[in-house]
């Protein structure tokens, strides 16, 4: 019982919710009650959640603005898709082919994450955003200019399609894996070091946090999961086209993270689901000439959310009816009393990109290179 008291239920809430949704939909497919369009939407939502949660690690917890997340996904989609296309003859279109391509797509994206993580050690704020943006475009353009035999060039890469009916189950299992890895990382001493870097890099260094290591880890983990999302994407498509992974897609992932509240995993999940659902719905409802309205309505909804997100009335509403209160009511405060309650809002950051180090007055971190010691000739 004592063990149960210290068990932080709140942290496992999102796994439970997703698992329940997964089971409900699985049962519905098995009994044949699910149309193909719904499973397709579920696949898309799962991919968005993986992308948003992994980007949330970089933007919300590491505090670096990355605009190249679609680039990592692109690497995963192309390389994973290629591997599965090569293996499908010998191993068949089964789970084994999928796992091998998933692994290779993830690893390749991880290597790209390492490469983009290196400049991230020196660049801050806007400059890093520009670099990552460029990375995404470079990757996309490289794949676009490959020959037809290798990656399909401008036509796109033909990839095998997994059994459509059950693929969303795999997608959601991978969502659970993503959540497990990223949440376990964040709610550990290593995650604490990563958040410390976000809050104050100079102080983190002075406190002995290995900034280089943790920044690279943040970028690599995020890239690996973006790569996984890419492989999943290549399986939902019969043809992977490089045009999908343009910077608009990167921004869309960032929108999910920002809307969900930076530094909030559950927020990212909800926002990813909402944005993807909205996009899909608008795409199906608005047909013909009305299709041009899609982006307009999408933009209007986003603007409204941004404006009203901070309105006092909504804040008061949220204060009264939030998960924490609801949960406290259900459990009648049985679990919420700890002697030192540090489950508070440690992971929530204000929605802005910090420029702290750039504007610091007490010392300049890099750039100034001291002169070499002067030789005897300086005496004259």
């Amino acid at each position: 019982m004592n063990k149960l008291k210290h068990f932080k239920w709140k942290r496992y809430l999102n796994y439970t919710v997703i698992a329940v949704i997964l089971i409900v939909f699985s049962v519905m497919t098995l009994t044949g009650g699910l149309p193909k369009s719904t499973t397709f939407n579920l696949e898309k939502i799962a991919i968005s959640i993986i992308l948003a949660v992994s980007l949330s690690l970089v933007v919300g917890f590491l505090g670096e603005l990355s605009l190249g997340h679609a680039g990592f996904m692109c690497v995963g989609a192309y390389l994973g898709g290629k591997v599965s296309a090569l293996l499908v003859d010998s191993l068949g279109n089964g789970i084994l082919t999928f796992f091998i391509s998933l692994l290779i797509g993830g690893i390749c994206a991880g290597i790209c994450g390492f490469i983009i993580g290196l400049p991230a050690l020196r660049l801050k704020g806007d400059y890093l955003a520009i670099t990552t943006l460029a990375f995404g475009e470079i990757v996309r353009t490289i794949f676009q200019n490959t020959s037809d035999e290798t990656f399909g060039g401008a036509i796109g890469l033909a990839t095998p399609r997994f059994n459509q009916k059950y693929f969303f189950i795999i997608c959601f299992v991978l969502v659970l894996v993503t959540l497990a890895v990223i949440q376990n990382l964040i709610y550990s001493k290593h995650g604490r070091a990563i958040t410390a870097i976000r809050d104050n890099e100079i102080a983190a260094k002075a406190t002995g946090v290995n900034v280089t290591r943790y920044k690279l880890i943040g970028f690599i983990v995020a890239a690996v999961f973006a790569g996984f999302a890419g492989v999943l994407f290549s399986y939902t498509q019969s043809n992977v086209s490089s045009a999908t992974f343009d910077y608009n897609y990167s921004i869309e992932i960032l929108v999910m993270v920002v809307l969900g509240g930076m530094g909030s995993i559950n927020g990212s999940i909800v926002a990813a689901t909402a944005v993807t659902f909205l996009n899909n719905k608008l795409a199906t409802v608005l047909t013909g000439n009305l299709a041009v309205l899609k982006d307009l309505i999408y933009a209007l909804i986003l603007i409204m959310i941004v404006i009203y997100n901070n309105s006092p009335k909504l804040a008061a509403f949220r204060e009264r009816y939030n998960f924490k209160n609801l949960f406290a009511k259900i459990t009648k405060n049985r679990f919420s009393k700890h002697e030192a309650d540090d489950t508070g809002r440690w992971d929530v950051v204000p929605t802005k990109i910090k420029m702290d180090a750039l504007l610091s007055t007490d010392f300049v971190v890099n750039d100034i290179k001291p002169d070499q010691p002067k030789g005897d000739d300086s005496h004259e």
Partner: protein
Amino acid sequence: MSEFVLETQNLGISFGGLRAASGVNLQIKKGEIYGLIGPNGAGKTTIFNLLTGVYQPTEGTFFLNGKELRRMSQERINHEGIARTFQNIRLFNNMTVLRNVMVGLHNREEFRCSMAESLLRLPRHFRVEKEMKARALEILKIFDLHEESGTLACNLPYGKQRKLEIARALATDPKLLLLDEPAAGMNPHETEDLRRTVELLREQFDVTILLIEHDLKFVSGICDRITVLNFGTVIAQGTTKEALSDPEVIKAYIGK
């Protein structure tokens, strides 16, 4: 093993043509509270930045317990045993007080836990987290901050933020603690409180303290010995009373 905790030899740095510090020789004994004072722009914080690896010295070198630390990274120097606070407070603002201190405990040998162990949630992860929390609370208790362990660092009043910064630095288990203007912007009551805290530190922890301060009353009340800097060079050195009555020092402070 040298008899001094910190020994600098001709430590100095130039930025282009500007010699921000040169020929600084400090010898700090174990358990001492050592003051570093001087007018604005004298190079006090520069010395701190040299000692913590933010800048690399262009001349001279420095030793901690006889080990040369020149050209080491900031993280490495912290592992070796020099911790610092900042002139303008640099806390992890969006983290709770408790977590701020726990970041300080991050590199301690007894709280080792690899990333794989954390990801797989092996027993060691839970044990280390529990022990870190307990240790952090202990440290907070010494600073009388344990009541606020759950508040965000940015919501603390100024004096407590200063204390938390010292607590975080101490959590890294330093041999030498550098305090950069700990009493800046404090009212007399808070200054007195800080003085008591610093003296408590010396008793409770095995730590030597080097501090920069403008409040001469505070300095003369707490420091065993001081060094006075002006324009990057040492103009007086010795026990607090001696150094403060040195004519050069008086000249530097109030002019001739």
